[in-house]
């Protein structure tokens, strides 16, 4: 079929597209196989998610796209989705007989590039190649762009155009192609045969850590693939690898933010947008951990851009476009008003701008009034965070929600309600081992899913996030659970949390051990702390790390988990905060 590809090399494309289908229903598996074969695709079927992962791992470059059912006995489809996105960076399409909006949204949040409803029609399968194509374009663009933003924007535009369900019209192709031609003279070589892409780089925890460190050092707003590459000093790594990883990272962060927004319905704080880069890979989290300060700052500046990007990224996730756009607009809104300073962003995710601004969480991030330009306007008393966080917290997987809320809750604190650092500890204590933050490689925890590879990006951070899943019972997340950042991988770490996490991580390093806690939670917690401080001190965030005395933070981790919960049950967040402060600053 004519896909507009100009290069003769891929005349066959999309024919020969290598598809891996995963479904526990044997009837559907057979039907899909037949349908895909009729589309001239190369099909491999699997009825177990584990088998599918093994197949993918054995042949890293063996497949172009994965189609998976959501409900499978051995592994949740969303989890598989995350693994694939993280480890192999392949486009994944989800399928289900259940078309509930929440499920579809979850799919998108986890990084699915499309969500099909059963019964599936042939025509829906015919166009799945567009997801492969789109990814290629993105990668190319990313590489091409020093800054990265433009590329993303372009891509977004392109993908938005083309990503309209499956109606990839000729015009879209043309416009996409035009963009491609205009922007990348040497696109062709990259676009070449989709099935012969270069070997994927596996972003191990160490590598990712280096990456995040480099990003932090450079400054998020000034970051660029070349700079990162130079700083990382990894001989075999190419600029392209870094570029695409950076893009994912950003997407991830923005995704987290977005999730926060969604969940918490905090309209205000759209900071998350900034952070949330919609990336299926959770690596964002890990990065976040490392990023702490730098990130914060960079986010600040980046926030504006991110916002846009996030929004777009989201939208071009296909089916959920509509939903995304809603979020987008929200986020956009939020972002604009959001805090100018990065700290604010961090906090604001929680909305630190007004530390206690109405959290009305629109989205997952406590939409703290973004309007408050001064980062910590702190009008402490009103922390309204309470809200919305609840929904976020609930979901284990979606961390994204948590972080924000949790933080918010804390923030809400009417200024200082004693946020019992300890309270949260329940969850954390279990996990954390006390001062040391185990940055458990995310892989370790398949719960979080992402741990793999992303391994503790930040030392402490990882541990938290991963583990946070479980207990964040205490809303008081006293310490920013930086660990969570790692956890972020999972679904949606709220970007807000990420930032916090970073801080938290610093502080929290201790304990967080990400015992598989859902990073989300952790993040939030961490976040709160950071934010809290920020709120009070204005951009404390930056300071926080300093304060974060690993020893001190140990307490925090626990709380962070709780905070993630944000169910905001505790209005006393502020109070805790003070406690936390001490703890943190005791260092």
């Amino acid at each position, binding site marked *: 079929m004519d896909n507009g590809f100009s290069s003769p090399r891929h005349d066959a494309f999309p024919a020969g597209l290598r598809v891996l289908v995963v479904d526990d229903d*044997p009837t559907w598996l057979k039907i899909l196989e*037949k349908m895909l074969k009729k589309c001239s695709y190369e099909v491999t079927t699997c009825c177990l998610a584990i088998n599918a992962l093994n197949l993918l791992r054995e042949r890293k470059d063996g497949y172009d796209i994965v189609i998976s059912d959501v409900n499978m006995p051995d592994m949740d489809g969303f989890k598989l989705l995350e693994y694939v996105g993280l480890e192999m960076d392949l486009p994944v399409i989800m399928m289900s007989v259940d078309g509930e909006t929440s499920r579809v949204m979850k799919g998108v949040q986890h990084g699915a590039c499309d969500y099909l409803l*059963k019964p599936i029609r*042939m025509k829906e399968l015919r166009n799945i190649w567009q997801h492969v194509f789109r990814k290629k374009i993105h990668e190319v663009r990313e590489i091409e762009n020093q800054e990265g933003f433009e590329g993303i924007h372009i891509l977004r535009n392109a993908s938005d155009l083309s990503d309209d369900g499956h109606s990839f019209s000729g015009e879209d192709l043309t416009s996409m192609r035009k963009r491609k031609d205009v922007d990348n003279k040497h696109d062709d070589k990259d676009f070449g045969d989709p099935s012969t892409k270069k070997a994927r780089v596996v972003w191990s925890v160490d590598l990712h850590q280096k990456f995040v460190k480099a990003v932090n050092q450079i400054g998020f707003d000034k970051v660029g693939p070349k700079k990162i590459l130079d700083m990382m000093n990894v001989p075999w790594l190419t600029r392209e690898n870094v570029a695409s990883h950076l893009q994912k990272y950003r997407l991830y962060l923005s995704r987290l933010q977005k999730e926060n927004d969604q969940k918490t319905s905090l309209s205000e704080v759209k900071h998350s947008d900034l952070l949330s880069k919609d990336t299926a890979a959770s690596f964002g989290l890990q990065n976040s951990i490392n990023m702490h300060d730098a990130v914060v700052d960079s986010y600040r500046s980046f926030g504006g851009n991110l916002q846009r990007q996030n929004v777009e990224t989201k939208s071009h996730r296909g089916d959920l476009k509509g939903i995304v756009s809603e979020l987008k607009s929200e986020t956009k809104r939020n972002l604009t008003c959001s805090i100018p300073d990065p700290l604010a962003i961090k906090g604001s995710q929680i909305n630190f701008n007004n530390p206690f601004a109405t959290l009305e969480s629109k989205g997952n991030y406590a939409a703290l009034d973004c309007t408050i330009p001064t980062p910590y306007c702190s009008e402490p008393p009103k922390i309204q965070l309470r809200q919305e966080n609840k929904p976020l917290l609930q979901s284990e997987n979606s961390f994204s929600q948590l972080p924000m809320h949790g933080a918010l809750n804390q923030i809400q604190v009417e200024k200082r309600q004693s946020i019992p650092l300890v309270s949260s500890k329940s969850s954390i204590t279990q996990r954390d081992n006390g001062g040391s933050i185990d940055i458990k490689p995310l892989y370790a925890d398949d719960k979080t899913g992402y741990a793999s590879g992303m391994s503790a990006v930040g030392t402490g951070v990882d541990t938290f996030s991963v583990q946070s899943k479980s207990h964040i019972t205490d809303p008081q997340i006293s310490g920013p659970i930086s660990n969570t950042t790692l956890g972020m991988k999972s679904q949606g770490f709220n970007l807000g949390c990420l930032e916090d996490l970073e801080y938290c991580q610093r502080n929290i390093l201790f304990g967080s051990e990400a015992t598989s806690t859902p990073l989300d939670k952790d993040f939030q917690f961490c976040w709160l702390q950071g934010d809290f401080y920020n709120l009070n001190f204005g951009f404390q965030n930056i300071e926080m790390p300093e304060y974060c005395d690993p020893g001190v933070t140990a307490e925090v981790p626990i709380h962070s988990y709780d905070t993630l919960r944000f169910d905001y049950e505790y209005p006393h967040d502020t109070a805790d905060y003070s406690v936390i402060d001490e703890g943190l600053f005791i260092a």
Partner: protein
Amino acid sequence: MDRNQSRRQISLMRQSLFDQGYLDEQFIQLEELQDDANPNFVEEIVTLYYRDSSRLISSIEQNLERNPPDFNKLDNIMHQFKGSSSSIGAKKVKAECALFREYCRAGNGEGCMKTFQQLKKEYGTLRKKLEAYFQLARQAGPAETASRPK
């Protein structure tokens, strides 16, 4: 003559399955997938469906015997069953699945029971009709598979 008669019969039978709401568009999709490479594709798929659905039905039966029934589990199984039924376009069966799940969510054990009985009935009827249909089609000759009227 016989052949023509058979063909007409098959065609009518097939049409009635649609008209009476036993099958929906998905079945036609399956028919369209059938080709020289897979001349008995539809029947193979339907056979797979029988196997899978029998297993699921007995699983539901077992779980319904428990007291109180584990609605979550039942809902999950029924979700699978619904997905499976959607693969061949078993319209009525699918509808019963949906109803069953509603009762599950409401925690209504009795409703589940009643719906399940109804579901089994529909499933049985569909199965019988399909078997008769395929048998006739086979008798009429290999080329006698139903094809979508243009």
